[in-house]
């Protein structure tokens, strides 16, 4: 954990009050972002993202499964996050489990919508192969390699990049299976379908330190936070999910203010991410 002296704490808080943070950023500025795609060859899609000293890897694996009986026309998506002790000795053994669970739950509610799957950033009906019988199960795994704050935004961006890198094999369903029988499938080795990722939201976390809130907090700044609100926003400006961390109470008017700020910031972030992702994919094609 971050151990800060009283002087350091005042310095961080004072900087945020004056809109000039310790690393020279303004309150609403991100650290430099870089993205690499296709880093895990055995996955269907993967990406590594660095935001300052924070580094995470996301991978997407697709397996054929059976759709849920209650939603026969939708595929399934599961998100797991693992905090490697490489990032922080605190995550050793079961030490990272609490944070891992907190992050996976936050990602699930930011990206997957409610239980019904309505409002999910990922179009679940595009995962269906044969209605009621076969669908794709997407397993999204996040791994924190280096942690310097703002893990949720980084994971959200990594998942977005990994999804746009994902190719799902084309599947031919043999006709003629009737009733309860599971139809035979033929999975293509050559043809891959790309996802439509334009609807996948980004996550913007606003961290409240003192009277102000900041984006992309480092771990030092996070140690001074009273609460943080993570908003996931799609390109259209729709809010897809929301989660609040930290124990301090927030005034409802502050929350709606934060949401509108997050919405404004998300526009820049989406543009930045999209250009980084397409640059990364161009790099990968060249290799």
């Amino acid at each position: 954990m971050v151990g800060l002296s009283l002087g350091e704490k005042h310095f961080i808080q004072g900087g945020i009050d004056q809109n000039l943070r310790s690393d020279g950023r303004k309150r609403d500025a991100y650290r430099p972002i870089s993205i690499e795609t296709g880093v895990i060859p055995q996955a269907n899609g993967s990406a590594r993202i660095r935001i300052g000293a924070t580094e995470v890897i996301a991978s997407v694996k697709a397996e054929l499964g059976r759709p849920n009986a209650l939603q026969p026309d939708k595929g399934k998506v599961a998100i797991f996050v693992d905090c490697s002790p490489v990032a922080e000795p605190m995550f050793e053994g079961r030490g990272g489990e609490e944070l891992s669970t907190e992050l996976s739950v936050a990602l699930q509610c930011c990206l997957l919508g409610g239980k019904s799957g309505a409002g999910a950033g990922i179009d679940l009906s595009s995962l269906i192969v044969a209605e009621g019988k076969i669908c794709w199960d997407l397993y999204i795994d996040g791994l924190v390699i280096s942690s310097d704050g703002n893990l949720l935004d980084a994971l959200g961006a990594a998942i977005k990049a990994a999804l746009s890198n994902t190719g799902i094999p084309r599947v031919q369903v043999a006709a003629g299976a009737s009733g309860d029988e599971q139809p035979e499938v033929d999975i293509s080795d050559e043809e891959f379908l790309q996802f439509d990722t334009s609807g996948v939201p980004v996550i913007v976390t606003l961290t409240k330190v003192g009277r102000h809130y900041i984006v992309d907090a480092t771990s030092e700044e996070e140690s001074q936070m009273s609460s943080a609100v993570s908003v996931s926003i799609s390109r259209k400006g729709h809010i897809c999910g929301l989660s609040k961390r930290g124990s301090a109470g927030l005034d409802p008017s502050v929350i709606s203010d934060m949401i509108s700020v997050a919405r404004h910031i998300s526009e820049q972030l989406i543009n930045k991410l999209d250009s980084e992702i397409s640059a990364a994919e161009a790099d990968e094609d060249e290799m």
Partner: protein
Amino acid sequence: MEFVNPEGLRLDGRRPMEMRQLRAQIGAVAKADGSAVFEMGNTKVIAAVYGPREVQNRSQQINDQALVRCEYSMANFSTGDRRRKPKGDSTNIACENAIFGCTNHWFMFVMCFVMANESIRRRSTEISLVIRQTMEECILTNLMPRSQIDIYVQVLQADGGTRSACINAATLALADAGIPMRDLVTSCSAGFLNSTPLLDLNYVEDSAGGPDVTVGILPKLDKVTLLQMDAKLPIDTFENVMQLAVEGCKAIANYIREVSFAREYQTAGVSTWLVVHKKGIRAHIQAPTLAWLLLDFQLSSHHLKLVAYTGVATS
């Protein structure tokens, strides 16, 4: 199955005595005291070193030497089939059991899960132990009494030889952290399939059921610190296979030395002593004198080890 074709090529197109491509990068984790990524073909591991630092659990403190700890973990996506949580996610299983427990078929499936989890956990505990013992052997632990060094290795891609790759990554990370070492341990595996000794087995060759000899050596001292073999092998063949693995270790040692020097000279322009004293033994040195810097530049082959050593000696 044919692992070496009549032309003498292996499944991935290598010759029997050829190693996979090595790649290493130092300083991958910004916040760690030392870190490295090591790749052997498609096997990719990342290692981070924290310390020497205060012992976290007082009861484990050793008064005349440093405590070395190691944890090995595998990413969910590291293998071909997506694996479940190695740390035993019992709550998840209980849940699935409750949902699907109605049919026998599902119950068996869940039981397989539990058993697979158990064996994964045991395997990672064993590898952690192997890495710890190997690294403990080469670290000059007596120079850092009452302190703790943590080595964390994370497998990103597993394609055979993870044990060796982890040891090589850990060595580089320890060197990056400036921890005084006797030598740079390196490790490599070799096997014996289709009556041919094969260097550096990949996953397919490793799971073929033949012997897998993993060797770790201290190249300068010419000592073997790690030796593991499963399956059986005639003694004279074993000698050949082991010799091959040792040759592999030496080749890796040369590569590791190149990488760590390249890194050092990159930073040398700024100030050499920073590399070695980066957190590791910084406390011992008040300020670098001119003599110090000159000394650093003169050391060539044992560079890393010696600089770290003198650092402590002069303090």
